[in-house]
């Protein structure tokens, strides 16, 4: 059963090729159904492979399938092969599962769009790249997937490229990610020079046998972390993610919340044997994660765009995952990655349903009381809200609190940062729910009929979305509800920690916390989070405080970080580039090239005199040359 693993990426690839050439002809809705079927099939194959892996002995759950040699170059040999172990199959399961649901949702969401078939071409290409990233058995193949998802992300962010802002957002995402990719590549070079292989199993076996110098390990770990920071939108490279919301909402759910942005976390978990040799790098990872979590949460409290709130929330939750990685709680990171994928995909799809019902209005200030019109969307959205806010027994409670306990065990200061973030999370998510689903119907108050091209009128009646959109919502709501079962802190039948343990072995952090604290701390966090939600109720439903007092412009503009980077790039950055282009390139590089050309031209002019065109002149040249050669040899031999 394990041999079927190659089908996991092959099916979306087949869908991609089929839709590329025949998508337009198939048209709506068949192109969508074919794309969905391919990814659904990929999910079923993943289930089969998972069953095959479970049938193996607990400590021999590593399976490598090599298809062919891809890059033979001296001592470097890169295969196209797949590594199936508990970590990669966990990731593959939720990636393909959620992708299938979001494909299904897109059939309804993209209905009537001009680029309907093109959308599914990109989505299938994305799933192919993502599964290659996850299942690849070496760094190069992971990097191939890494770049592939980057390209798909770019194409999908600027999907509606007729609008200039969308195209710019796509470019921004792509260019920001290049900074991270640079780190990934350098890490690969460094790893190859120090270990001599790029295949995961070989590298890890080598590390186990010979170890790794701490400075080298630190260099590789931090360079890989640069890659992860770019892809997973951590500080300071997070600023592409809020702009990425320009893409269609299913894309935001799939790529910019559930799957692609978690690949940085996955990479860090994958290379945990390297991190094991670099304890200092782990501290940096933990603090960058904690800072990002708090920083993004403070921005999220003042956003008015329904998707921007979720975007900053995603950055913040990814910060949690890096916090977990940094404290050695790899399982907690993977656990939160899975539950976050469930509830964040749910929240994004829910917001997409709202946007769909509100005729593409995204400003929460023009929504309200939608629970009356969108029963399925609002119930499922509220499930997502409870899950992300960390209310038991929803999934987010279990995963977030596992991270926080590990943070406490590592350093109480990290716990404080994490807890403040949790309170802010509860606050801004409650704010969003209250603004969208409760309160007055604000779009009726507005007298402007056409608001930047949207057809939202005071007598607008929002309508619930079609079944293709609500079925995924219900499925994801169910998963967000029971997701915690994966890793309950009790002795259960299936325990994610026991399943993943062979991947991490002795590198997992052991909890250094008493039982009472282990049970008490989550409820302290819960109590504080409920307070946060209550404050949101007090402000936004009861309307006790004006919104402008709790939402300063500083936070609405994200601490002006984006503006600062923009002016840095536009000011000194542009000046530097101009200097390079006009002085160094035009005069230096071009001068050298033109100089060589001029030299050759002048030498040619000087030498053309020698070619008279008379045969006898050439014959004389030959004869003279022969005489000279003869003279030379005679003088050498002393004839």
């Amino acid at each position, binding site marked *: 059963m394990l041999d079927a693993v190659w089908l996991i990426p092959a099916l979306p690839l087949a869908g991609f090729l089929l839709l590329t050439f025949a998508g337009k002809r198939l048209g709506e809705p068949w192109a969508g159904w074919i794309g969905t079927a391919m990814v659904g099939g990929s999910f079923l194959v993943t289930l089969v492979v998972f069953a095959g892996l479970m049938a193996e002995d607990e400590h021999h759950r590593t399976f490598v399938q090599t298809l062919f040699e891809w890059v033979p170059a001296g001592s470097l040999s890169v295969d196209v092969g797949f590594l199936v172990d508990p970590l990669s199959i966990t990731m593959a399961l939720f990636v393909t599962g959620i992708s299938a649901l979001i494909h299904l949702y897109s059939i309804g969401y993209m209905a009537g769009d001009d680029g309907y078939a093109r959308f599914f071409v990109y989505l299938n290409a994305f799933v192919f790249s993502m599964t290659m990233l996850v299942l690849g058995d070496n760094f190069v193949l992971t990097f191939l997937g890494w770049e592939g998802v980057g390209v798909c992300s770019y194409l999908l962010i600027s999907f509606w490229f007729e609008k200039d802002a969308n195209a710019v957002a796509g470019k921004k995402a792509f260019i920001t990610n290049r900074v991270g990719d640079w780190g990934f590549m350098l890490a690969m070079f460094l790893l190859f020079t120090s270990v001599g292989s790029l295949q995961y199993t070989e590298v890890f076996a080598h590390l186990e046998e010979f170890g790794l110098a701490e400075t080298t390990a630190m260099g590789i770990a931090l360079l890989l972390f640069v890659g992860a920071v770019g892809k997973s939108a951590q500080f300071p490279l997070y600023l592409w993610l809020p702009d990425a919301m320009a893409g269609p909402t299913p894309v935001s759910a799939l790529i910019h919340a559930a799957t692609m942005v978690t690949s940085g976390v996955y990479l860090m978990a994958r290379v945990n044997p390297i991190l094991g040799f670099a304890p200092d790098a782990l501290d940096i990872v933990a603090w960058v994660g904690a800072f990002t979590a708090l920083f993004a949460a403070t921005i999220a409290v003042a956003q008015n765009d329904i998707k921007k709130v979720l975007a900053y929330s995603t950055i913040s939750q990814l910060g949690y995952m890096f916090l977990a990685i940094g404290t050695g709680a790899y399982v907690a990171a993977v656990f939160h990655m899975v539950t976050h994928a469930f509830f964040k995909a749910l929240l994004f799809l829910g917001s997409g349903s709202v946007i769909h019902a509100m005729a593409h209005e995204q400003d929460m200030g023009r929504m309200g009381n939608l629970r009356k019109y969108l029963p399925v969307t609002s119930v499922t959205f509220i499930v997502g809200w409870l899950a992300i806010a960390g209310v038991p027994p929803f999934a987010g409670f279990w995963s977030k609190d596992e991270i926080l306990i590990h943070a406490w065990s590592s350093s109480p200061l990290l716990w404080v940062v994490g807890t403040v973030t949790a309170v802010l999370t509860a606050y801004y998510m409650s704010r969003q729910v209250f603004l969208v689903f409760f309160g007055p119907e604000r779009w009726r108050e507005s007298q402007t009929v056409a608001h930047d091209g949207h057809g939202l009128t005071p007598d607008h009646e929002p309508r619930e979305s079609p079944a293709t959109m609500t079925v995924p919502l219900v499925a994801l709501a169910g998963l967000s509800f029971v997701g915690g079962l994966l890793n309950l802190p009790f002795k259960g039948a299936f325990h994610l920690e026991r399943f993943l343990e062979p991947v991490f072995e002795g590198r997992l952090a052991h909890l250094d916390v008493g039982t009472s604290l282990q049970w008490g701390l989550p409820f302290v966090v819960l109590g504080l989070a409920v307070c946060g939600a209550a404050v949101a109720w007090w402000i936004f439903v009861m309307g006790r405080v004006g919104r402008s007092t709790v939402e300063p412009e500083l936070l609405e503009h994200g601490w002006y970080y984006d503006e600062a980077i923009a002016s840095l790039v536009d000011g000194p950055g542009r000046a530097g580039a101009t200097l390079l282009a006009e002085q160094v390139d035009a005069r230096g590089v071009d001068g050298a090239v033109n100089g060589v050309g001029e030299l050759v031209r002048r030498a040619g002019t000087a030498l053309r005199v020698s*070619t008279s065109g008379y045969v*006898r002149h050439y014959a004389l040249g030959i004869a003279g040359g022969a005489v000279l050669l003869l003279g030379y040899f005679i003088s050498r031999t002393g004839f």
Partner: protein
Amino acid sequence: MTVEPSAYLMVGAVLFTIGAVGLLVRRNALVMFMCVELMLNAVNLTFVTFARHFDDIGGQVIVLFVLVVAAAEVVVGLGIILAIMRRRPGANADDITLLKG
């Protein structure tokens, strides 16, 4: 009566020099051609002399090769000269300076 090898070599050298000088000073393409043949056969004579002197069959073999190459060269060369003669009267090599730089 035996003739010294040096005599043959001298004849070869004289023939070669006549051919080389003729090639340089004459303008008629056909004459220049004959000069080239003269040089080739001067060399052939030298080869045969040495082959005889050192009792080495290699020199005679080379002569056969030179003869074949010379025949081929004559075919190509005369072909070119004929083609030129069709376009212009006379066979003055100095009139054809198309490769002038």
